């Protein structure tokens, strides 16, 4: 997978690294070179393993197997400190700052400037912090608390912190996601300067135009593997998209042409206020017919998951009216809404979907245990029969349903969560990113299941950030942006460009580069 760096030095190379987590494999035999004096771009869909790979290089996570070499010598980063000592700086995707400390204190955290036993030299720290911030052309006062800064300025502090480490390799994981276009320009100038000093930059972003503009080398990841590596000069945006999606890799079941029934679910005027004012979910109305699959597409933070949570009754402060088969839903809490026939497959499987230490079978019947009881006594025979039926139905690989669910692969865990939802006999199924972080085979199974359930008369609402998925699976596509539904397409009217354009409405600088969508 290695390629000629064109005379530039290779600062670090990752050699066939694998990283497994309980229930999922984030990286499979990944090899990757960081070239000095260049911007090494890394792209891939959500869950492709980019962030994990960077965390391996930065010493945040330890690989399960594989090697890392620097200057030809093998190195092991047991901790972030080891990596910092080797000159590896990182700007994290999720900000790693202490809101209760000042900007200067954050920049010098764990490398405080001291005057012997006299303690920390606050003035010197602030003076140096100011020079880094000036390099980034901002006038943030180093003495302010980080918690008092808006998110964009916090991002700049995070970058300043990485600069202060005098890194030879600087990893930037979506550094521009919270920056304005002016701030982004400044960042690019700083990156150009670092390049001339021989620093190897690793740059991750979903904004493809941006990558083509500043990248020298591009590496594409998909499903935890590297699928392509090229000089940026030789490629264009459409090549990158092809590599990311993998042309023929996905297997979407064709619509079977069944007709839709009457309306099974309607949400009217759903709102969820944001703490800082405005709405996370801004007066959203949507309906689903029985047998229909409605895809909700949008960028991260568009309010899609929050909309689902409102429907399920997770947010007591939300407003809105819901109807199931024409009858108003008056139940306020999750328990009541499940009883009325709503079921949610949450986006974050590990945190909201499964109870990892409980068994596979127990997880499946968790939401519907009352069905297997006489009075308050669980009937093990009935429960076992239902579990066995589900395992068969969804082709779950679970020879021993008594093993903990955490022993399964991500795809099988996802099927367990789907089984749990289906056991409540729902009329409407809400699926939040149902294919995230699972392997290709399981994805195909999940998609087939969605088609089958729709054919059986269920109404399905699903959220995805994957354009191809939403185009292939939906009977209708609702596009959300900034908490609102900006457009609803019938399948035959939807085109990729129109959907992306609708997902960028109301986003300041995303509109400028409409292709930069979260593919």
């Amino acid at each position, binding site marked *: 997978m290695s390629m000629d760096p064109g005379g530039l030095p290779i600062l670090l190379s990752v050699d066939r690294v694998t990283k497994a987590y309980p*229930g999922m494999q984030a990286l499979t035999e990944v090899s990757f070179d960081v070239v000095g004096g260049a911007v090494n771009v890394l792209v891939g869909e959500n869950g492709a393993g980019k962030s994990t790979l960077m965390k391996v290089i930065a010493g945040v996570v330890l690989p399960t197997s594989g090697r890392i070499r620097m200057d030809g010598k093998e190195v092991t980063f047991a901790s972030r400190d080891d990596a910092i000592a080797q000159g590896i700086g990182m700007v994290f995707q999720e900000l790693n700052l202490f809101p209760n400390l000042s900007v200067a204190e954050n920049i010098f955290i764990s490398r405080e400037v001291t005057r012997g036993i006299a303690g920390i030299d606050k003035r010197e720290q602030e003076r140096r912090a100011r020079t880094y911030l000036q390099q980034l052309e901002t006038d943030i006062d180093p003495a302010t608390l980080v918690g008092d800064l808006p998110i964009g300025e916090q991002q700049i502090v995070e970058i300043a912190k990485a600069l202060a480490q005098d890194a030879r390799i600087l990893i930037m994981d979506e550094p521009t996601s919270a920056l304005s276009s002016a701030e982004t320009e400044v960042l690019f100038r700083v990156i150009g300067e670092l390049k001339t000093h021989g620093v190897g930059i690793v740059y991750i972003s979903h904004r493809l135009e941006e990558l083509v503009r500043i990248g020298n080398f591009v590496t594409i990841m998909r499903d935890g593997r590297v699928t392509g590596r090229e000089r940026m000069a030789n490629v264009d945006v459409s090549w990158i998209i092809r590599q990311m999606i993998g042309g023929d890799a996905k297997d979407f079941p064709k619509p079977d042409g069944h007709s839709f029934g009457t309306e099974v679910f309607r949400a009217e005027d759903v709102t969820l206020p944001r703490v800082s004012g405005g709405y996370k979910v801004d007066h959203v109305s949507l309906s689903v017919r029985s047998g229909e699959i409605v895809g909700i597409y949008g960028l991260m933070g568009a309010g899609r998951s929050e909309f689902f949570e409102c429907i399920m009754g997770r947010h007591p402060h939300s407003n809105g009216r819901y109807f199931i088969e024409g009858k108003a839903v008056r139940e306020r809490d999750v328990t009541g809404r499940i009883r009325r026939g709503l079921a949610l497959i949450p986006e974050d499987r590990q945190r909201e979907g499964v109870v990892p230490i409980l068994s596979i079978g127990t997880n499946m019947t968790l939401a519907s245990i009352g069905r297997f009881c006489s009075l308050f006594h669980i009937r093990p025979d009935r429960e076992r029969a239902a579990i066995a039926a589900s395992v068969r139905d969804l082709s779950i690989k679970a020879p021993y349903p008594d093993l903990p669910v955490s022993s399964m692969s991500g795809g099988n865990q996802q099927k367990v969560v789907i089984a*749990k939802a289906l056991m409540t006999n729902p009329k409407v199924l809400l699926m939040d990113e149902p294919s995230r972080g699972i392997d290709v085979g399981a994805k195909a199974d999940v998609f087939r299941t969605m088609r089958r359930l729709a054919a059986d008369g269920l109404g399905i609402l699903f959220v995805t950030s994957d354009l191809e998925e939403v185009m292939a699976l939906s009977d209708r596509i609702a596009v959300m942006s900034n908490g609102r539904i900006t457009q609803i397409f019938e399948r035959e009217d939807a085109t990729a460009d129109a959907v992306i354009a609708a997902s960028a409405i109301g986003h300041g600088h995303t509109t400028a580069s409409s292709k930069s969508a979260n593919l």
Partner: protein
Amino acid sequence: MSASVTARRPSGGFNGSIGLQLLKLRTFIALFAVVIFFGIAAPNFASAANVILISKQVAINAILSLGMTFVIITGGIDLSIGSVVGLSGMVAGGLILHGIDTGLGYTIYFNVVETCVITLIIGVLIGAINGWLITKLNVAPFIATLGVLYVARGAALLSSNGDTFSNLVGRPELGNQGFPFLGAGTILGLPVVIWGMIVLGLIAAYAATRTPLGRHIYAVGGNERAAGLSGIRVNRVKMIVYMFSGFCAAAVGLVISSQLVAAQPATGESFELTAIAAVVLGGTSMSGGRGTIGGTIIGAFVIGILSEGLVMMGVSTFWQIVVKGLVIILAVVVDQAQRRLQQRVVLTQVAKAA
């Protein structure tokens, strides 16, 4: 000690069922080890009279530990139970000795059954206060129950100005005799306390394994968010476990004051710690989601036998305290080592499979 022998699991193939069986047997093996050790080392240890004596001691801690087990499985902790033991003893003692003065010139006295019911209800109500603080006011369980620990102990002391309610035999003219039966009586040759432990233990074990409530308790402790999204009423489950814990504590308070035929406000100090020790020794995870009632009972027996056996061997009380502490630490260390090993096996399996 012997527990570590079973901690080694076959590191090759992952055979879930064998691994799980060994996990469950670990506390059993510890129990057999202490029984055999003292059977040999301490004379008269295995005599029937001594077994019943030890069981009576163990029953008190075991009943408290039952309530504590559910609380810990939900990921919480109940520090207030020792104080509730003291307070409920005072309530029972006060009702028997002084009744309730209505302030209208006459006093209501209750018979023994009514007294016990009222005392148990008060225990449940204190549990409900714990649950309310934790679920509605979002106070951390440690702090909420620590606060209630002090309040309940203070209330117990206030109830008698620090004095002991003694000679709780009741008076024939009031019809409230018979209280000492709880502590001293026997049914079919077994002391009432031991019956209490058996009955409550069976109910708790049944609830844990065969009822939806039990499932919900494990689910809340294993992953509260997922449980909530599965339609489990998380707050209601938490209320119930703290109320049950209060119930167990009140029951123990009744038993102890009945055994002594007196109620003393300082009764039950640091009982919560012994109960936590039994629960942890029984294999319940302090982070929630994992544990069994059977394990807890065995844990209570290991602790009880350890201290009684050491007494019979003539070991100083001070050494007993040290040994108890070491055993608890060892149990948790072994548990952790085992879990790490298990996780590593699963991970390599996943890496190999993909």
